[in-house]
């Protein structure tokens, strides 16, 4: 039975969609303010800075300070977005995120761009492969990793409209458009991108596209793969996970993140607590990557549809008949 293949046209980077969302938010709410740390042309906050000069605060190369400034703005009633490369925002600003934004309970929105290894030539010092892990360890934070421009734009807006601290993960590379413009999104609610019955691939970010491609290829081999976009890592959609575990009895989790600390372990926890089933995990294995083109890096570090297929076959081999 041949299924219709998914059309996956290359769209814009999620960081660009973030920039657009900020401008729209700025127009609708005068309390939206933005801070950046000498990377506004890379994070796309320069679009907001151009239109709303007085509501944009350039913090210089001082990410830790920027985060706490943002928390202060939040405490005083603003809706602040603080942005930098994910690596610098999370690693330099973690204490500030923890104490001033999480423990201090604020309405701070932290947006890290250039996440994962797909930033390319700049190499490991600028690659964020532990941001989901760090952000998810902040009590009370909502953590989001959208996979395309449409979900990014919509989820950034919802984050602004939802009180509480957020971490939003964006990428540098242009990526495929997964969703139609009229797709509905809800924070904390996973989306079944492809229906399937034999096995479920739960992914976020760039790996959603790869999982969809894998499901198309596997459909031709008679394997029915459900693909779930877990755009919200925290709070995680327990219902969707329990349902997938119960109905398909085999789960692969795929992410552009350290495999032992990201989405995978969080999904595994829910699987263990609900409908235990066989699982496999695809991610970056206990290493820092290197310089290279984004494509070469994604190939070398196993972030492709072909790698998803390998994991699917491995998990199916372990699935009890």
């Amino acid at each position, binding site marked *: 039975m041949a299924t219709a293949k998914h059309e996956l046209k290359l769209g814009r980077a999620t960081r660009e969609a973030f920039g657009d969302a900020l401008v729209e938010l700025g127009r609708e709410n005068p309390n939206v303010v933005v801070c950046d740390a000498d990377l506004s042309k890379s994070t796309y906050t320069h679009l907001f800075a151009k239109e709303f000069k007085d509501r944009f605060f350039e913090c210089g190369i001082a990410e830790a300070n920027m985060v706490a400034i943002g928390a202060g703005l939040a405490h005083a009633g603003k809706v602040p977005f603080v942005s930098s490369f994910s690596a610098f925002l999370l690693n330099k600003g973690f204490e500030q995120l923890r104490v001033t934004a999480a423990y201090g309970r604020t309405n701070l929105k932290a947006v890290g761009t250039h996440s994962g290894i797909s930033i390319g030539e700049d*190499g490991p010092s*600028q690659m964020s492969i532990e941001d989901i892990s760090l952000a998810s360890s902040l009590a009370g934070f909502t953590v989001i990793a959208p996979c395309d421009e449409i979900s990014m734009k919509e989820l950034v807006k919802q984050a602004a409209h939802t009180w509480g601290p957020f971490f939003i993960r964006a990428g540098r590379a242009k990526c495929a458009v997964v969703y139609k413009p009229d797709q509905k999104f809800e924070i904390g609610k996973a989306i079944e991108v492809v229906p399937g019955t034999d096995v479920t691939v739960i992914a976020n970010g760039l790996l959603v596209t790869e999982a969809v491609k894998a499901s198309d290829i596997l459909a031709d081999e008679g394997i029915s793969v459900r693909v779930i976009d877990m755009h919200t890592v925290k709070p995680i959609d327990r219902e969707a996970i329990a349902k997938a575990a119960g109905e398909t009895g085999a789960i692969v989790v795929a992410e552009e993140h350290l495999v032992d600390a990201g989405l995978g372990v969080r999904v595994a926890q829910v699987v263990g607590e609900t409908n235990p089933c066989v699982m496999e995990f695809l991610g970056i294995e206990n290493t820092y990557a290197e*310089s290279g083109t984004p494509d070469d890096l994604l190939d070398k570090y196993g972030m492709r549809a072909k790698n998803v297929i390998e994991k699917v076959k491995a998990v199916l081999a372990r699935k009890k008949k």
Partner: protein
Amino acid sequence: MIYHAKSGHPGGSLSAVETLVTLYFDVMNHRPEQPDWKDRDRFILSKGHAAPVLYAVLAECGYTPKDQLNTLREMGSIYQGHPDMRFIPALEASTGSLGLGLSLALGMGLAAKLDNSPSRTYVMVGDGEIQEGQIWEAAMFGAYHHVDNVCCIVDYNKIQLDGWVKDIMGLEPLADKWRAFGWHVIQPDGHSIAELQAAFAEAAATKIKPTVIIAETVKGKGVSFMENNPKFHGVAPSADEYKKAMEELQ
């Protein structure tokens, strides 16, 4: 190199050329044939994005192969986008996240003192980079603990990533700031080898206080259309620009 890689940071590499050349060819005690010599002087490029100038100097010294310089930023190249010790063991640090190098240098300086080693440690930071709070924590530490075998060089080229330093987070009065933190301050022309040589000699002769050399430089130095042009912080030249730049640099 940057042209062949089609990405990289020409501006902050060109502003640092004379400082690195002076250090590696006149000032530092080091042995390219024995990179792990215990009493060597050390250099840390804290502003790791200027890796191309460091790679060119290391290759010229004989630490690394010259014929691979044009593999900059390619997968598998030892010349990674930012200095990476996994690929070049002769590097003193893997850098690229700004703000860390001065602390590392002070740690090395303290170790040299404990070991009664004559080794001196040099560290170059960017002017944008010193907006990081950790730099000033390190500055306080260095003066308080009299780490006088460390010399910090600020590449004062007045430009950072998004534009001019003065428009992003001005640093002035910069020399007074370092003095107030207890450092000996020298302000040479960072493109004059003679002035740099004198500054490094003065730094070595200065006891108790650590020294900071605030090198007055021009970002993109030597290439007319790159000089003082924020665009060339992190953009590779086009084919035409490359040709013109190479003519001007001859």
